[in-house]
């Protein structure tokens, strides 16, 4: 504070010089932060650029027909995207069909039914499940789920659903345990905690007043969930589901262990198959030339696919903490 006792001292301090130093320091800090933010954007562009450049030889060879080519065969140097893309899409779709209802169920349980004391532990347990590395899902899937599938579940499916006309085509042997269905199951368990957490958070944003009034009117818990919670949070829910889908599309390690590595296009979803990420993980190490370029082209497709899904999700969910 400047007063009569130190006024003389204070006048010796060069205010202009101090201000100039401060401005310089501020400017440096400003540029550091700006550069960092710009770096993030640059990284994404760099990734796109590198992917596109390395994928060009593939499109030079096949043109756009790479996108609907149904043969992927390294020995004969013929590459088409369809087997891998179909595998990714089908496994993600089935995983979502399983995970989304389960997640909603768990979220409803956590927000409406769960006794208060259990809420935190169970919620934490679900979130811990989300933290388990994907390779763990892969090896547990390989050593626990695959034998179960091969010895009990798949033969059962072949004998029952496999005999039904039309749908039966999807459930034909060979069924050695690894395959699209097994991969879908592992994926479902993987994205379950992810979607549950988002759904629960979104349900918690519903104003208590709305809930209380609904209960007060005599609605059952299920009716509250169906008619209040879900419609109110519809956008957030869809956004959360899309995020889960984005996660499922790109998942590698959990899927690679249990999907087999067959690039033949086939109708049966219980037979060994492949997905984009599994194909890359399995064959990237020894691929070169056209095969390498085709793998990177697949990677580019995956990147674009997950970009679209994520962009859609963001548009629906807005900017909330739960992302």
């Amino acid at each position, binding site marked *: 504070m400047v007063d009569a006792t130190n006024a003389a001292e204070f006048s010796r301090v060069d205010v202009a010089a101090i201000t100039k130093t401060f401005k310089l320091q501020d400017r440096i*800090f400003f540029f550091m932060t700006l550069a960092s933010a710009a770096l993030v*954007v640059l990284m994404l562009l760099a990734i796109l650029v590198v992917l596109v450049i390395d994928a060009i030889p593939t499109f030079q060879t096949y043109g756009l027909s790479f996108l609907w080519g149904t043969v992927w065969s390294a020995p004969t140097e013929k590459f088409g995207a369809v087997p891998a893309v179909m595998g990714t899409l089908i496994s993600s779709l089935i995983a979502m069909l399983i995970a989304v209802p389960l997640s909603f169920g768990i979220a409803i349980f*956590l927000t409406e039914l769960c006794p208060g004391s259990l809420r935190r532990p169970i919620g934490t347990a679900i979130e811990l499940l989300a933290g388990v*590395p994907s390779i763990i899902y892969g090896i547990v899937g390989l050593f626990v789920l695959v034998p179960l599938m091969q010895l009990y579940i798949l033969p059962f499916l072949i004998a029952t659903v496999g005999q039904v006309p039309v749908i039966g085509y999807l459930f034909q042997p060979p069924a050695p345990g690894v395959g699209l269905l097994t991969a879908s199951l592992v994926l479902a368990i993987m994205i379950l905690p992810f979607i549950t957490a988002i759904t629960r958070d979104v349900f918690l944003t519903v104003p208590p007043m709305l809930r209380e009034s609904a209960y007060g009117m005599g609605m059952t818990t299920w009716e509250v969930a169906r008619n209040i919670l879900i419609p109110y949070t519809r956008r957030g829910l869809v956004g959360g589901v899309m995020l889960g889908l984005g996660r499922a599309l790109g998942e590698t390690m959990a899927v690679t262990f249990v999907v087999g590595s067959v690039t033949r296009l086939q109708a049966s979803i219980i037979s060994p198959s492949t997905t984009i990420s599994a194909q890359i993980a399995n064959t990237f190490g020894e691929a070169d030339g056209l095969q390498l370029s085709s793998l990177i082209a697949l990677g580019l497709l995956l990147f674009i696919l997950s970009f679209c899904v*994520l*962009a859609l999700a963001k548009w629906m969910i807005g900017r909330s903490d739960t992302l």
Partner: protein
Amino acid sequence: MEDTIRQNIMSRRYGRNRLMMTLSVAAAALGMFFLAVILGTLLFHGVSSLSIDVFTMSIPAEGSRGGLLNAIYGSFLLTFFAILIAAPIGILAGTYLVEYANGSKLAEAAKFINDILLSAPSIIIGVFVYGAVVVPMHGNSAIAGIIALALIALPVVNRTTQDMLLLVPNALREATAALGAPRWKAMTHVIYRSAWTGILTGILLAVARISGETAPLLFTAGYSKFMNGGFTGPIATLPVAINTLAADPGEDLKRLAWAGALIITVAILAINIVARLMGGRRQ
């Protein structure tokens, strides 16, 4: 007559409710069951494979004694340096987006791009680093692995920093402006300090995330059975070691894979729990 109709409707409603609620509880039970199966399998196979060798010897050839020392070391090395690079940049980037450019179209675009990077499939990051680093360097290296992991951690730290800084009340910012100090000092001394717990939580979560990543390391850091202290040349990490050893027919090597799986899962769960305790009141 009306009474019967009303009773029918009521019982139908209650019946449906009971069904749905049972399903809901069943779903939660199923979720707990999956967690139990995963942790149970890990513990069952992993605990029996733990021994002092696992922490003192490197990965062996089939039939010899060995452990996971070089993989554990590799994981530490890569995670440490990846965070060393990603954390400062992430914090600074988040700072720019919230403190300096908040609300501008450019900032919104940058935040969006950050979130894209955040959710990008990690194997694509690996493919990118392969083309950008491994090929020019003519081989796998710890450097390539560090860059790949840093690219995955960066958006996480950036995002958490943004979220934390947004929670700091504007009144605090105005107060620091009145202090007369340079803005950056105000930032670091006051604003960072109040958001610090949250930012640290974000860094811990990033650590947990990249410690468990396998796909981006497969063709960048590669794999090795030996201790490699340097930054060039292939280096083993726990996740990649698990991946390679799990596929081996030999029983001892498979056991090592389970031991590694247990170690990494316990480590990551511990970090997550610590982060959660720190983040605490948020939920």
